[in-house]
């Protein structure tokens, strides 16, 4: 026992030291600790419990919340196939089945030799270059039969992931249309130079004048948010950049962080000066672990350039630095209060609000949480002024929006437009043909049918956090909605009754329909569930969990109707399939070994 604890101390001590034995960093400690064995050893929890002075139950409770943390061995190679609808459309399920067959492993289980496990995971943000997977939390895209076979070979020969061919890990930006943000030749420090010249008050004023609204979805005025936080009393103020980007179909923040990180960090630094923060966090989703070294290098360079750290640009009391925290597979941590809980090393459960983060956020101190794209936009505004920005886009949606386009089109990738662009224009630009529908803003957004393609991307018409998934006439919109419903059931945090149970009930209902046991009764049930989730759920996840089903029932009803073999209620239980095990055991499959279904006998 003692010697075991000591072996764990060898790799845990440096982690704990680096994290200054700070219990608020528990999630980071666990994530780093896991890199040692590929899972969190039970004895390691004893050691952490002692050193961080935390009860074991708390550590296990946190580890149990996040999809990428394991309390049981998951193998030396942990393969997770991204399972967004766009991955499905590109054949991820066949590739996964083939990989399981080649390596003799059942999906979701550890292989018998303990070498590997294969499973699915929620959208990894690579929809423009899928099908995608994570191997030991590192992204591999553009999977094909050849690539999957090559990976199987590497695993069989136990080649460490770090020695796999570099091209496997190549990730494209795929920037297809540039506008003010993606097209700018922003120089690091240029917006801070304006700040130095004109002061924080004027910068805040420019942000207000710009009428910039948050790009993370809700569209709250950024200027007002900064102002509320600035005047909120507190010992410390904090800036948090939300790079959780978990909404399936969204991948713009990935590109911004890869190629425009200076704009993002500079926006955070402007905010820090405005609200009086000394410390900021970038909360980076675990799926983007591959960006970590690059981002650390950018931060380091900015420190050397006096754009971060003590006395920024030589200004006496201007101290600010940014720390990167990684998520660990939990979409709900994109919700700002759950994100803050996660930053504090807890389970990512949304808080009761009010109070809002601007008055009581990280460590209950005033905190600004903004999306990656929002911060990047504030750099431009700092540089070019608020009225310039307000002149772009529409009256109530100023500036530009970056869309993450994926699905059935020739040129998936990023498209930046001034707000107000029509859906039809985007479809034409990305080379989409015979389009049946577009899912805007991901599963929690809206499904747009062909007769609505003249509608515009703007807060006043179709608001969006950025996802733009295209489905042509050959796609089954029922399966699209079913994929989304499973996503919500998987990502519900489980805190409140309606969402915890309701999302599972909904996915069971959709599965029942998929198996041909549905009836119009189920439509009414789905409608009732939606009302309940809308009115009683604790947070936005529950509120929007039924959206895609309701939209597709309303707009693509035939996709549902062809599954309704019955006019009246039908139980989900199928007597004949219940006999399948008996058939398998007896080796029989003749007519006498089957029960007739009512509808067939009529």
């Amino acid at each position: 026992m003692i010697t075991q604890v000591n072996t764990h101390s060898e790799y845990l001590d440096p982690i704990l030291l680096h994290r200054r034995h700070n219990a608020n960093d528990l999630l980071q400690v666990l994530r780093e600790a896991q890199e040692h064995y590929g899972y969190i050893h039970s004895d390691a929890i004893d050691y952490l419990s002692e050193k961080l002075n935390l009860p074991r139950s708390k550590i296990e409770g946190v580890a149990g919340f996040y999809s990428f943390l394991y309390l049981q061995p998951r193998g030396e190679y942990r393969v997770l196939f991204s399972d967004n609808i766009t991955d499905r459309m590109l054949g991820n399920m066949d590739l996964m089945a083939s990989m399981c067959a080649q390596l003799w492993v059942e999906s979701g289980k550890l292989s018998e030799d303990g070498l590997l496990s294969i499973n699915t995971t929620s959208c990894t943000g690579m929809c423009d270059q899928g099908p995608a997977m994570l191997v030991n939390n590192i992204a591999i895209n553009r999977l094909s039969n050849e690539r999957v076979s090559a990976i199987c070979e590497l695993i069989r020969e136990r080649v460490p992931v770090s020695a796999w061919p570099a091209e496997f890990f190549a990730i494209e930006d795929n920037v297809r249309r540039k506008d003010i943000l993606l097209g700018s030749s922003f120089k690091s420090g240029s917006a801070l130079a304006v700040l130095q010249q004109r002061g924080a008050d004027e910068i805040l004023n420019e942000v207000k004048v710009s009428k910039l609204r948050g790009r993370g979805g809700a569209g709250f005025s950024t200027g007002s948010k900064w102002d509320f936080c600035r005047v909120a009393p507190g010992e410390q103020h904090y800036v948090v950049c939300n790079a959780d980007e978990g909404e399936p179909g969204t991948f713009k923040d990935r590109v911004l962080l890869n190629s425009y990180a200076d704009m993002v960090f500079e926006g955070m630094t402007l905010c820090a000066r405005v609200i009086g923060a000394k410390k900021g966090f970038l909360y980076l989703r675990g799926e983007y672990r591959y960006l970590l070294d690059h981002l650390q290098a950018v931060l380091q360079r900015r420190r050397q350039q006096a754009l971060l750290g003590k006395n920024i640009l030589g200004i006496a009391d201007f101290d600010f630095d940014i720390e990167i925290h990684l998520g660990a597979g939990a979409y709900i941590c994109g919700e700002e209060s759950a994100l803050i809980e996660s930053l504090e090393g807890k389970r990512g459960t949304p808080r009761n609000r009010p109070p809002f983060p601007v008055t009581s956020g990280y460590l209950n101190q005033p905190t600004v949480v903004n999306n990656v794209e929002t911060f990047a936009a504030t750099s431009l505004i700092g540089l070019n002024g608020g009225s310039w920005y307000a002149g772009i886009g529409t009256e109530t949606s100023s500036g530009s929006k970056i869309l993450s386009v994926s699905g059935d089109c020739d040129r998936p990738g990023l498209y930046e437009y001034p707000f107000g662009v029509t859906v039809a224009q985007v479809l034409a630009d990305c080379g989409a043909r015979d389009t049946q529908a577009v899912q805007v803003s991901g599963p929690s957004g809206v499904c747009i049918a062909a007769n609505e393609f003249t509608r515009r991307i703007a807060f006043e018409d179709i608001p969006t956090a950025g996802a733009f998934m295209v489905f042509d006439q050959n796609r089954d919109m029922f399966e699209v909605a079913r994929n989304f419903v499973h996503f919500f059931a998987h990502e519900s945090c489980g805190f409140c009754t309606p969402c915890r149970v309701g999302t599972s009930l909904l996915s069971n209902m959709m599965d029942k329909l998929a198996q041909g046991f549905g009836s119009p009764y189920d439509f009414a049930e789905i409608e009732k569930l939606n009302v309940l989730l809308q009115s009683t759920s604790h947070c936005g996840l529950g509120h929007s969990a039924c959206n895609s089903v309701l939209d597709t029932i309303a707009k693509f009803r035939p996709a549902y109707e062809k599954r309704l073999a019955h006019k009246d209620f039908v139980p989900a239980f199928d007597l004949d399939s219940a006999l399948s095990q008996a058939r398998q055991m007896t080796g029989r499959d003749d007519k006498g070994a089957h029960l007739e279904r009512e509808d067939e006998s009529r």
Partner: protein
Amino acid sequence: MSPDNKSTFTLDGKTVSYTEGQTIIQAAMAAGEYIPHLCFNPEFKPHGSCKLCTVKANGRQTASCTQQPQPGMVVESDTKELNDERRALLQMLFVEGNHFCPSCEKSGNCQLQATAYQLNMMSPHFDQFFPDRPVDASHSEYLLDFNRCILCSLCVRASRDVDGKNVFALSGRGIKSHLIVNAKSGNLADTDFTGEDKAAHVCPVGVILKKRVGFVIPIGKRTFDEHPIGATPHPTVKGA
């Protein structure tokens, strides 16, 4: 706004006064009014997870255990719409776990069961989940029957905030959320839990049960058998 309605709101038309910091349900209970609830217990900080206490406050639905009233706020609670929703939430809790009331030691003292009677819940309505949740009988005096856990976290709060022990915690996520205890073995016997803990006496359903006192008070003579929930504001549960 006139100064005299400064610290009152109306609940289903009745005027209720409140003090700064109180939530709607706290003020309502202090005034002898009943709003259905499960995860709320007046002795603990509100949690806001079961959503049974949902009311309409100035037309907007919100959990009354966490929402603070505003002067003159119009709160609706005992309406058909809200009671229908509460019944659906109860049905969700019933199908999520394994609740076989006739054979449960907590029957008659159970807040879930009593609330279901009060709201006329006649059937579970939804398809049952039938989860596999093994019982923990390791402790010499207490039994944990997780089949009935509704994840209200009262035991978690009691153990952490009152007993200073952290015997219980929630783990997992979504529909896989579950209660764990503070022991490497995962067994209650290996924690510092005792029958004197506050946490031993807060479970609103039949998870945390004292051994060898089963059915001392016969079914039919128990707390909610004699005083339906909501009839008196909050009866003290017998034998707890």
